[in-house]
């Protein structure tokens, strides 16, 4: 599943972001050998300070398995500076409805080869489809994405071939980099979904969002315990009871008005989702 982290909610997801920066260090620093700065095992550059949006894929154990970073092309972005060699020193495209995507990667150590939900291929397609969807929902029509030739081949194989390129393929570390153009159209998203067999929602729901946040550890354990096997009726009731108890505790333990509001909102959301019942909440 996919979660979007941006400048508005990033303070709640420091664990996920750290894992993402570690994944980027392994991929871009070690595997691809790009000239990136790694500190404490994390690859973080100046663009991460500009409040970009991160589209992040997580597996069933709530671990980061894929990620990509998006910036507007109207302001500072990588092709206008760090990656200008790809454009041969030419000024980059600038459009209100064009975003730049960089640092697209998946965790090849955790994921396997095949085409199950736990494969490199599925994770790549899920991340690609979700990042196009997120852009589309923001009124964006096209994405210029900086990728390596391997990722370019993966895109072509996944029925998601770029419709064009800007600049030229440029040597960078052990592999080269190139800038490809993708449209954020329903047709493209549908083709990727069909190729990988992705059904249902791409993005996590509110409950999972909470579980993935820094203060969601309690629920993570509850969710993991329940996810390990198919939910039996009694287990379902147990989960409902635990969630209801959790909501009651959150309301009772709220120290500030904000916390109380947040607790009430969570209860409301869970009620709306039918995960707890009104009588006992």
């Amino acid at each position: 599943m996919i979660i979007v982290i941006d400048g508005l909610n990033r303070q709640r997801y420091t664990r996920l972001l750290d894992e993402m920066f570690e994944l980027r260090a392994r991929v871009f620093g070690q595997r691809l050998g790009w000239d990136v700065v790694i500190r404490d095992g994390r690859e973080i550059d100046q663009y991460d300070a500009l409040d970009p949006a991160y589209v992040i894929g997580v597996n069933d154990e709530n671990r980061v398995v894929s990620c990509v970073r998006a910036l507007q092309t109207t302001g500072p972005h990588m092709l206008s500076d760090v990656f200008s060699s790809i454009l041969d020193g030419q000024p980059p495209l600038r459009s209100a409805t064009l975003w730049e995507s960089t640092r697209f990667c998946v965790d090849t150590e955790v994921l396997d080869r095949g085409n199950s939900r736990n494969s490199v291929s599925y994770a790549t397609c899920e991340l690609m489809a979700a990042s196009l969807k997120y852009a589309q929902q923001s009124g964006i029509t096209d994405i210029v994405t900086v990728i390596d030739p391997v990722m370019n081949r993966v895109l072509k194989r996944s029925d998601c071939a770029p419709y064009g390129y800007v600049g030229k393929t440029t040597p960078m570390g052990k592999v080269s980099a190139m800038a490809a153009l993708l449209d954020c159209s329903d047709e493209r998203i549908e083709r990727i979904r069909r190729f990988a067999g992705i059904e249902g929602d791409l993005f996590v729901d509110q409950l999972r969002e909470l579980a993935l946040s820094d203060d969601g550890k309690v629920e993570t354990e509850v969710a993991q315990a329940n996810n390990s096997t198919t939910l039996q009726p009694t287990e379902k009731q147990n989960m409902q009871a635990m969630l209801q108890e959790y909501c009651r505790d959150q309301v009772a333990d709220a120290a500030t008005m904000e916390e109380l509001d947040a607790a009430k909102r969570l209860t409301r959301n869970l009620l709306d989702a039918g995960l707890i019942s009104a009588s006992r909440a």
Partner: protein
Amino acid sequence: MSVIDLSKIPVPEQNLRSYLDTVCETYELDFAAYAGIDPIQQTIHGFVNYPEDWQAHYVKQGFQHKDPALLMASRSIAPVDWQRLRKESMFEKILLAGQEFGIPEQGLTIPVRGPYGDVGLFSVTRNCTDHDWKLLKASILGDLQHAAVHLHDHVMKTNILTRRLTHPSLSIREIEILQWVAAGKSQQDVADILSISNRTVEVHLRSCRMKLGALTTAQAVGRAIGLSMIHPV
């Protein structure tokens, strides 16, 4: 920083307030507002078409310094639907105050980032149900993104220093495409001539228009000729 109301500056060709009215009319919106932060000039530019009494109340309360629609949206790259801000108690307070002045609760703010750390925030509102809002949003968001950047670039260029810094800089490919368009070739013709896809031509033309501050391709061609970037054919 001081607040400058551009709509009260008597420059006829820059009637930005009427631009907001046009946007509202075109896209079935109730109100529109723009706030731009220029780090070079150290100023905040603002103009809105909200009712006068709400504007007065907003400034009197100093809402511009604490409005989450401005402070938080500037940290997003995507438009921020106000539904996402409702958990902020300050936003709730401003929304409640606004209701007394007939300001709708459905709204969104589009953040624009410019090349020099300049930030623009373009907000629109509409009184309608959640369902209608969702539908309207999906159909007009792309156009609103263009309007937001156009507006922002325009406002930033009212500052002479910024205007000097932002001399439009087109790539060889962009100039090449614009030159073929000036020679009367269609988008598909240009794609065939340059052996690139139609959509690649389109993306480059969109970029040309944005860089030249033009709303149409014809206007972009005119401006490019005026700036001696392409030859008149």
